[in-house]
């Protein structure tokens, strides 16, 4: 996972497989970065994520909550077809901007 800070906020380049096993560490790392940098916008870049199940939806929804509480927003970037399929099912595409 690579974190990149820019004017509008924070971009997180996620990698590997996002399942229940992996999501705990990912969640902790992102939340630490959010509290440290207080971004207006959190960009979750899924372009090199090879797998995601509903644990990833929980992860996105959880980060949406954290950002929303602080008046910020969340953007999902680079999600591949299988990941978009899981996201569409969850309706998370209505809370976060997908691009």
């Amino acid at each position: 996972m690579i974190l990149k800070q820019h004017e509008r906020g924070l971009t997180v380049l996620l990698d590997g497989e996002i399942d229940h096993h992996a999501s705990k560490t990912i969640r902790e790392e992102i939340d630490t970065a959010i509290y440290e940098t207080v971004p207006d916008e959190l960009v979750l870049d899924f372009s090199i994520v090879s797998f995601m199940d509903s644990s990833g939806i929980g992860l996105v929804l959880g980060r949406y909550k954290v950002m929303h509480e602080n008046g910020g927003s969340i953007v999902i970037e680079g999600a591949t077809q299988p990941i978009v399929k899981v996201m569409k099912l969850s309706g998370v595409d209505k809370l976060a901007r997908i691009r």
Partner: protein
Amino acid sequence: MKVMNEFELKFRAKSENESFARTTVCAFAAQLDPNISEISDIRTAVSEAVTNCIVHAYKNGEGTVVINVKLLDGNMLYIKVRDKGCGIADVQKAMEPMYTTAESDERAGLGFAVMENFMDKLAVTSKPGKGTTVTMRKRIGNGK
């Protein structure tokens, strides 16, 4: 339906095994020559079923997950995932999208919805205190 091939996988309910389980089932199912999107559907559905055993069934301790996979006549994939964990009191309610008993753990309540959507058929039987069995079927090659 005639069983063309089958295998059983038994493992400790540890989160480290989630990836192993879904990858192994997909490797076996490859005999049915699924396309990329079918493989991805199977991988995700198995991940949901196995994760539920680890997160919910054995939330209070250790246990074993058993997966049976059968390749049936007519290019049909059959997957059974069972645990001997806490069981589900109201299966119908548990299967409703967004229903979860683990909200504090950031669960979305979408595992069953994924299994239902990504596979052709889903059946869940459960007895509180005894365990849960999830069976799924998918015909491979429908979209070809």
